[in-house]
């Protein structure tokens, strides 16, 4: 992998696709977060729209369902003045047997400038980035268990907003880590941005021990994982990805790994609680925590729009 250039960067080291946070230099991540700050203030204007992507066509290709992510990408693209085309791809061409690359070739012939791709298979956005025309940009909106880079970046934006600096932070990522592309993206981003300690917290069946090789502290004990944390990122228990006997039951999971006010009291008194949504109330997070004073779950959604505006405007402005 190291011998090949990162396919997300051009020869000048500028971002042309966003496929994964893994391998992106700190300067690129910081540029995205700084630019997002500029876009956040667009919400305060009378005209909540800027002309940077005027005349560009952005295709939302969601091979897997998502309401929130697709909507926030759509809002972000529209605030940048792009034309947005949403394809219900799972029900149309793919269902008729068209291959992924044929779909892309057809959409490219419709003069697409950017693809926002969610796919159940890890690596699908890479395949598209490799085969699309040089002027076309690709954003990964979640691929299999692999990566969800814009979620990772909006999580970083949220942490920086509340905690200012990563250097002294203890961040606990809690729950179903093995199935979570969000966890993977968060861990890569946190380690690039220099968080002091990253903890992966959950049962042995859902928290792989090889995370230690990434410098992560693996905690199979909830109290140990939460103690003195500055940031607690709760993950959704992914019922739809769960097959076989990884867990006895959701209720059993909630008892040991669900975040309640009592467990949260172990973290620092000014800790923030994050969740990528949608939340399973009473499973991984108690309503009292989700709606409580430490929760920044809804600001995450707002920041997500600004972060996606930043990503799309940065990649659209760089040439392959």
């Amino acid at each position, binding site marked *: 992998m190291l011998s090949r250039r990162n396919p997300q960067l051009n020869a000048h080291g500028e971002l042309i696709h966003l496929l994964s946070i893994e391998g992106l230099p700190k300067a690129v991540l910081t540029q995205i977060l700084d630019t997002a700050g500029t876009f956040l203030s667009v919400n305060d204007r009378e*005209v909540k729209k*800027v002309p940077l992507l005027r005349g560009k066509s952005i295709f939302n290709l969601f091979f897997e369902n998502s309401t929130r992510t697709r909507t926030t990408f759509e809002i972000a693209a529209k605030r940048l003045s792009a034309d947005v085309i949403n394809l219900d791809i799972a029900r149309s061409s793919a269902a008729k047997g068209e291959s992924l690359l044929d779909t892309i070739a057809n959409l490219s012939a419709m003069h697409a400038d950017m693809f926002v791709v969610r796919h159940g298979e890890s690596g699908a956005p890479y395949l598209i980035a490799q085969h699309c025309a040089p002027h076309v940009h690709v954003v990964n909106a979640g691929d299999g268990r692999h990566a969800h880079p814009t979620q990772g970046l909006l999580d970083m934006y949220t942490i920086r907003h509340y905690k200012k600096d990563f250097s002294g932070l203890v961040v606990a990522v809690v729950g179903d880590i093995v199935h979570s592309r969000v966890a993977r993206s968060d861990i890569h981003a946190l380690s690039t941005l220099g968080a002091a300690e990253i903890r992966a917290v959950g049962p042995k069946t859902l928290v792989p021990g090889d995370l230690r090789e990434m410098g992560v502290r693996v905690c199979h004990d909830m109290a140990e994982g939460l103690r003195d944390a500055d940031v607690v990122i709760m993950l959704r228990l992914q019922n739809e990805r769960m097959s076989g006997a990884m867990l006895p039951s959701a209720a059993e999971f909630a008892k040991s790994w669900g975040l309640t006010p009592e467990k949260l009291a172990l973290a620092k008194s000014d800790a923030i609680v994050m969740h990528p949504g949608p939340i399973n109330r009473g499973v991984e997070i108690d309503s009292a925590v989700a709606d409580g004073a430490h929760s920044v779950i809804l600001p995450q959604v707002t920041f997500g729009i600004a972060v996606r505006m930043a990503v799309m405007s*940065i990649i659209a402005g760089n040439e392959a």
Partner: protein
Amino acid sequence: MNAMLQLDAEALYAELLGGVRSLLKPEGVLVGIWSGGAWLAERLQADLGRSGTAGVISSTLHRDDFGSRGMAAGTDATKLPFAIAGSHILLIDDVLYTGRTIRAVINELYDFGRPASVQLAVLVDRGGRELPIQPAFAAARVVLPAAQKLTLARDEAGRFVFSVREQA
């Protein structure tokens, strides 16, 4: 010899202060263009004894060279601590050249409302306009070769200095 070597930014600032004093309506507001113009507006606001802070405006989101240059990596952002609709705006910038920044900034301004009027005062007008834009006041008018870039800097004591660099 390079005429630029004689550009005394502090002396020009004194000229600008006088020009702005006579241009600015009592109900008008100062808006400095990031970054040099913002420094000037901040100091003008104090030297004119005006209460409140001057506005800052950035051209980033309306630049016409986005397609070729992409997003700038800067953290500059527009901050307008007053209503724009119906107000008399005096834009302040350090160097006026092609006029493209001013065009972008006027578009940016209109995203916040419809001003009653917009005027422009600059420290130096270096000619080379590519758009029909003229300042209401310029402390100096000079002609510079296109290869030279004129930049305002601010030292630790807050004093202004001009520098001329050859562009690659």
